[in-house]
């Protein structure tokens, strides 16, 4: 079947990918890694397993914390059996300079539903690489949301295999970057079964000298007729020194599919700014309202209301700091 999904091994410190490799061309990991990393004692794999038909009403939370000088390789495994439902909140933080090199494996069983919210707030000196592998069965729903705010360099790499019919897979995300932060989102979706839907909706805010990367690829196999694939990446530059690299790709071998992609990078439009100022908002208020709206449209994809409110609050705080400095 020619799947491009690679084996799930964490990145190796002795054999780091370089920008010479196509998928790593915008992200130089070796240059960002802190010096003198000590391999921490490896924690056991965290396993979240929900049995057949198990419906979890309350969201579950896990926190990954690292500290200065550590090279940690956390492993997370999430398995939802048939009909299980879960909202999982994954938080990332830490202190000092470290490398959190993580592998996540997710299996969403038939008719199961996983709402996966990832709040990445690693320390601004830290590096995080997170390789995520997702497999979905028939009628499964995976709805992912990632808020990337922290880290000196982060790479969130997702490989999704849609293996069962009539599944729906969504990756939504917001990157809010300032200083010299670098955030790379690389997504590969393999449509292997018919009648499935995939959505990618990412928005990136870039201030100061930050650098954003979005690479999104949809691979529709010959068997995956009636695929509906959607991809949108919008980046808003708040500073003339910020940079965004976007690489949308579609590779389609089925003849009855609907796939679209769009990518924009730019500054705030003058027209809505002027419209709002004519209605009495000062420039700072108008900018704040427009930029908050820009991220709100992604936050709306989070289904759990209290979680959504937390995310709104976090983005609002970030914006107030960014726009008032």
């Amino acid at each position, binding site marked *: 079947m020619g799947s491009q999904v690679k084996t799930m091994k964490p990145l190796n410190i002795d054999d780091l990918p370089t920008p010479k490799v196509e998928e790593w061309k915008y992200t130089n990991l070796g240059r960002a890694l802190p010096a003198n990393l000590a391999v921490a004692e490896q924690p056991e794999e965290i396993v979240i397993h929900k049995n057949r038909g198990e419906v979890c009403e309350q969201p579950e939370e896990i926190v990954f914390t690292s500290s200065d000088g550590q090279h940690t390789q956390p492993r997370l495994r999430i398995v939802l059996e048939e009909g299980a439902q879960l909202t999982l909140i994954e938080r990332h933080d830490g202190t000092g300079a470290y490398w959190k090199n993580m592998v996540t494996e997710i299996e969403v069983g038939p008719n199961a539903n996983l709402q996966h919210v990832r709040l990445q707030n690693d320390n601004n000196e830290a590096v995080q690489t997170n390789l995520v592998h997702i497999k979905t069965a028939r009628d499964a729903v995976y709805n992912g949301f990632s808020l990337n705010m922290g880290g000196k360099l982060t790479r969130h790499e997702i490989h999704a295999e849609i293996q069962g019919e009539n599944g729906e897979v969504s990756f939504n995300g917001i990157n809010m970057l300032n200083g010299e932060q670098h955030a790379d989102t690389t997504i590969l979706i393999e449509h292997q079964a018919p009648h499935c839907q995939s959505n990618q909706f990412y928005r990136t805010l870039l201030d100061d000298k930050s650098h954003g990367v979005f690479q999104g690829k949809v691979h529709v196999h010959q068997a995956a007729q009636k695929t509906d694939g959607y991809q949108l990446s919008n980046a808003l530059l708040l500073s003339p020194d910020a940079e965004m690299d976007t690489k949308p790709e579609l590779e389609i071998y089925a003849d009855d599919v609907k796939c679209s992609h769009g990518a924009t990078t730019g500054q705030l439009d003058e027209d809505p700014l002027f419209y709002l*100022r004519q209605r009495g908002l000062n420039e700072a208020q108008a900018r704040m309202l427009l930029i908050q709206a820009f991220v*709100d449209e992604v936050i709306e994809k989070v289904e759990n209301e209290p979680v959504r409110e937390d995310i709104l609050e976090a983005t609002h705080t970030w914006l107030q700091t960014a726009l008032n400095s």
Partner: protein
Amino acid sequence: MINIKDVHAHVETDDGDVEILKGISLDIPAGEVHAIMGPNGSGKSTLSYVLAGREDYEVTKGAIELDGEDLLELEPEERAAAGLFLAFQYPVEIPGVNMSTFLKTSINSIRKQRGEDELDALALLKLMKEKCKDLGISDEMMKRAVNVGFSGGEKKRNEVLQMAMLDPKFAVLDETDSGLDIDALKIVADGVNSMRSPDRSFLVITHYQRLLDYIKPDVVHVMAKGKIVKTGGPELALELEEKGYAEFIEEAA
């Protein structure tokens, strides 16, 4: 009320710096409705942007005063607080900002600038409901993002709604009739007419006489090539409708 004196304005285009307004003078006393008619490219919309303070237009000469206050010294939001309202020819879509948040932020920003207390949510809701009812605007429309997915008529009604809520001293309506069918035109005109009062003035910019059947102007100006070339009573609009703009453009040349 509003005094526009010998205003010259430039804009930067792909072909370089172009003078669009070439010495516009206009006085609108309190309580009057003036109409400006003119062909495409005569500078009508530029005048509305210059009045509202859009930064792309540079005023190189002249003065604009609203009740004696120098508007050219003010930022767009300060002009709004001073009582100037512009109903846009092309109302801007603002995805992600819903109508009620927008109206609340707008009204309270203006009240704050004027040193007035902010309206609470309840008072705002009441005001909004009342004005929406007058203009036949549904509650559902208030839940949508500003102008997103609105029909042409809904966008223009929305402009009039904002005008009614912000209660300006001087309102500029920039081609508020364009894209409206006759029913929508009547609703919009009724909205404007109900706001006519001895202490409010309007400047109505239009291509067509039709709007002026519903909003009766006190004075009609003809604009061509960046200047007012003729001023008269409402009968001037009828004359224009009949004869077209040709002779006025020649006069301006």
